[in-house]
């Protein structure tokens, strides 16, 4: 549940923020304006709902499972997210990204030992 919600949340957040365009002005007034326009973006709203589900299921997970199980589970989102980034978001996932992501996933499994 946590994995699915996080994947959906990340993909929609990426779609929504790209639709919004680059945020390059970090003055307080500009941030408020950007937040106001982002809050009206349906993709960002879907993403926020999915992230809320992901957050509460992660909260529940860490209360019942040891971190050694919770942490590698959170890395299980890497593969589906990369596939969606490639095919849905049209990102250029070259061999260095695939190789890097594979190393990270194997590394997370080791770190959780």
């Amino acid at each position, binding site marked *: 549940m946590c994995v699915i919600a996080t994947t959906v949340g*990340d*993909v929609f*957040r*990426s779609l929504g*923020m*790209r639709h*919004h*365009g*680059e*945020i*390059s002005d*970090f003055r307080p007034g500009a941030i408020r304006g950007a937040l106001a326009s*982002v809050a009206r973006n349906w993709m*960002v709203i879907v993403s926020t709902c999915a*992230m809320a589900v992901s*957050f*509460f299921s992660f*909260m*529940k997970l*860490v*209360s*019942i499972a040891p*971190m050694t199980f919770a*942490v590698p589970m959170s*890395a299980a*989102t*890497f593969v589906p*997210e*990369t596939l*969606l*980034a*490639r095919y849905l*978001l*049209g*990102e*250029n*996932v*070259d061999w*260095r*990204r695939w*190789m*890097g*992501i*594979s*190393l*990270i996933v*194997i*590394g*997370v*499994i*080791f*770190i*959780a*030992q």
Partner: protein
Amino acid sequence: MPATEAIGSNRSLHAKTALWATISVVSNVAGNSALTHGMHELGPIGSAPADLIGALFHPWVAIGVVLLIVWTLAHMALLSWADLSYVMPVTAIGYVVTAFAGKFFLGETVSLARWVGIILITAGVTLVGRTRPDSAISGTAP
């Protein structure tokens, strides 16, 4: 665009991305640690919405939530210019930061398997970090 200008804009893009990725990683690691600490102090809770919302009023859980809001905003800013397939792996350096935080602040021992994991993740992050952060937005034309 002259070559030097292209290199300059590429550098500033990497610098800006690195700054926001750092904010994102630090707030995420600190937020998750506070959240976990708080949830462990609370002990097992039910799955009912009221139980989960009630947990938000525990001080450590609340601190964790505030830090995770900072993380959400930094992550959203990053994704406004950078690829998901770039941001996701690069911010995985957080796993390494967590392991080191455990070693230095909590005095946990880092086993050989963990060191191997740390080296693999660092290598993976370095590899992805060498790619251009915004392939989809700038176009994938050769």
